């Protein structure tokens, strides 16, 4: 669906919602075409195509609000009526507001017109390439799961305050999940992913190589040792253990819910001075880059933590009104659901030390490439299995270990952290370095 057509649908939804008795409204539309080719057990699984237009409507009755969405334009009028019915039944909340019009600067580079020519056949070719590369590396490898997909879409938003925006985007997305099997020995399962906006920069090779090499490297893992000491987390493990905590604690909705421990912590140290965290909805090459958020507010770069000190929370219109502060344009989510708060392109800024140098300083420790377990964002307690883990002895990675449990508290770990790598890797919309944590409980499996 073109920009103009989707804007038209959003405007129509506004009119109809008003007609059903709303005082104000917001209509957000997403229209997308996707092609997905999936890989299972070293072979193509299925190719599929999908087209859908979804409209989500927020109806306001004074300060009462209701939300309804539909993927069927035939039921748009009933859906607008649903939103008003829901608003009528809801209690009023003075923070229920729509953002006002502000000029925004549209970002470049998120839509490649050439992507429109990309066909199912092209997607199949890329999926076959993933399989061919894995086969060429080692016959013991199994790409248990993988995918190549393209998403070409349009988003549009109209609200009663006069905001009217739309933009197009394209995204090629691919991942590989590799395991190595040697007789009865089965390796750790390694997952690698990448994405690009441009047809000309699709390159599946690096992720397939990384997944395969990591899987092979973890073959023959034996139980490790138990100790309390340092561990190094890969970007993937950082996401599981620490990024989730930072997101939860800086989500202004969680401040209002009384669930964030960082409520009174702005301008105080919440992490080691080595840690700086930014969220940038306009980042170049970011897979979550777009010009405006789920409420139509222009994205901007936000420092969440600077040199260990908490700088800001992530806000949408509601939380900014509640906390009498500036909206940071972090309204997020699809058209089918109410705007919530979420990150865009989340980054832990790289340090100056290489990953190898961080390892070389360690007498004994564990390198964790993937964390499988629980990380409670409220208490900060984490505990789980270190997958694809390696023992570090006297400054060197010595052998793969299996079944090793790691446990600690993420609040403490952030403060006692002793190293941030120069290298970063992308884990979906998170760009993260390797981090060295201290005082972690490590239990042999």
């Amino acid at each position, binding site marked *: 669906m073109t920009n103009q057509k989707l804007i038209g649908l959003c405007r129509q939804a506004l009119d109809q919602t008003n007609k059903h008795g709303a005082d104000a409204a917001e209509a957000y539309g997403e229209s997308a075409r996707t092609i997905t080719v999936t890989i299972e057990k*070293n072979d*193509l699984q299925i190719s599929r195509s999908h087209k859908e237009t979804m409209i989500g409507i927020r109806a306001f009755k004074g300060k009462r*609000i209701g939300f309804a969405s539909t993927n069927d334009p035939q039921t748009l009028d009933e859906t607008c009526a649903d939103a008003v019915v829901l608003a009528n039944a809801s209690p009023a909340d003075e923070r229920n507001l729509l953002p006002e019009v502000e000029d925004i600067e549209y970002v470049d580079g998120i839509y490649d017109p050439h992507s429109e020519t990309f066909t199912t056949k092209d997607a199949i070719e890329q999926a076959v390439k993933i399989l061919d590369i894995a086969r060429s590396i080692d016959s013991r490898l199994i790409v248990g799961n993988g995918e190549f997909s393209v998403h070409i879409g349009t988003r549009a938003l109209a609200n009663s305050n006069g905001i009217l925006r739309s933009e197009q985007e394209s995204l090629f997305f691919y991942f590989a999940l590799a395991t190595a099997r040697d007789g009865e020995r089965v390796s750790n399962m390694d997952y690698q992913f990448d994405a690009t906006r441009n047809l000309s920069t699709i390159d599946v090779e690096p992720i397939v190589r990384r997944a395969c090499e990591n899987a092979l490297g973890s073959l023959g893992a034996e139980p490790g040792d*138990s100790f309390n000491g340092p561990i190094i987390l890969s970007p993937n493990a950082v996401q599981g253990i620490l990024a989730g905590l930072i997101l939860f604690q800086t989500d202004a909705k969680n401040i209002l819910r009384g669930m964030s421990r960082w409520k009174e912590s702005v301008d105080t140290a919440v992490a080691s001075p080595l840690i700086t965290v930014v969220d940038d909805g306009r980042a170049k090459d970011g897979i979550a880059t777009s010009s405006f958020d789920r409420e139509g507010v222009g994205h901007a770069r936000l420092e969440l933590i600077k040199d260990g000190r908490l700088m800001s929370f992530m806000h949408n219109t509601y939380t900014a009104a509640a906390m009498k502060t500036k909206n940071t344009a972090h309204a997020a989510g699809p058209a089918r659901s109410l705007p919530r708060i979420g990150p865009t392109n989340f980054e832990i800024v790289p340090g100056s030390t290489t990953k190898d140098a961080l390892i070389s300083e360690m007498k004994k420790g564990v390198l964790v490439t993937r964390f499988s377990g629980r990380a409670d964002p409220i208490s900060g307690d984490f505990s789980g*299995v270190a997958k694809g883990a390696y023992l570090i002895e006297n400054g060197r990675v010595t052998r793969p270990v299996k079944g090793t*449990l790691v446990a600690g508290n993420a609040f403490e770990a952030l403060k006692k952290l002793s190293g941030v790598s120069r290298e970063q890797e992308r884990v979906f919309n998170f760009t993260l370095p390797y981090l060295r944590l201290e005082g972690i409980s490590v239990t042999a499996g």
Partner: protein
Amino acid sequence: MLHILQAIAHRSDAWVELRYHARRTKRIAVSSGRLEESSSVRLVGVGVRVLIAGVLGFSSTTDLSKQGIEQAVREAEDAARASAVAKRDKIKGLAAVAPVTGKFSVETSDPLDNHSLEEKLALVMRVDSQVRGTSKKIVSSTVAYAEIQDEKIIVTSDGAAAHVFDAKPEFRVLAVAQEGSDQTMGMDSAGVSGGFADLFAKRSPEEMADKAVALAVNQLGAEYAHGERATVVLDPGLVGVLSHEAIGHTVEADIVLSGAITNGKIGTRVASELVTMCDSGPSTHLPHAAGELLVDDEGVKTGNTVIIEHGVLRSYLHNRESAAHFGVEATGNARAFEYSDVPIIRMRNTYIEIGGSSKEEMIAGVKHGYYLEGLGGGGQADSNAEFMFGVREAHLIEDGKLGKLVRGVTISGNAFDVMKSVDAVGSDFSWDLGAGNCGKSQLAKVDAGGPHLRCVVTIGGRQE
């Protein structure tokens, strides 16, 4: 719609599956006294799958006209043909099934639509207020009600024409307690297939609120567990989690073929002979299991699949493709969450069969160990059946008696080793995993449960 789908399916040369799916969902969420969400979603479309030259292709459309659906069939056919060149392992065929026709509807005496939006909203607001009013230590509360109502018409070119109606409501309570800088969380939830009264048949909303508050408050200041291998008594919730998450996924035939630990183990001993494990489409033992599925999304009538019988692995979970591959009957495990999802092998209601011991006897027989209840804070398992789960509530057992509460407990191990260590199975039964969804590239409403069970696991705690 049924006739349009039948006309299109029977005109095609290829095998075709057409699935019309209209879904209405509603959700109400209140947090600390403020309404966070009151929403409804309408989702409708047709998912089309075709099999051409041993290759599947899929397409979905929201254009419900005959032309729109025919166009989707053509796109699915194009996708299949384009893949055929590169796919190595062609599908030899689909397991034959008796064509399922007619109407299938989840049973309830109290349909969701008999209860107004206002009533549901008032209930959520009231329970949220109760959570905060019960203890001064509660600093945050969240209560949510959600419902899914589905109508599906599943038509295949080999004779299925099933019209299915389903309803799955759920209710969740979350309480956060604080003392000094110590914050803890307690939760309770319920989810069923059925109506409004069925959702609260086991525990009232008020009882769920009390449970969440007690869990949060009691954990404040509790000691952390120490890491060790220990004998534990698991409640039906954790038995369900272990059955579904740690074992169930490893017997899904697609995962088996991807190299799961269960590959080639049919007929071998994988668990204690006290253990019989099943996955059932209908609700077994107790009604309204949340994963209830009367006809699967390939139009196969479901039954009860015995996965492990007295410790011996008997069956994987199949769709028609994998059943043909293994030369067995389809088990009715093909499911698609939304119209735009491809049906894949999923569990339904997974459980351990009832045994002969009482919970009290099982606890009395433990010198040192733990009594563990419910999944808390997530966890994971892999195709080797290695698992790690957070535990919602853990009590020490010393000399056969329940002792103090400990926090931060996780359990881990290999699920089959754990099942081999089972030395007592309870005589009770409960479904306990009905709220929330199982994720496997798409969501599914499932349930799991069983009786209490005694076994040996690794307790994750802290290494001083």
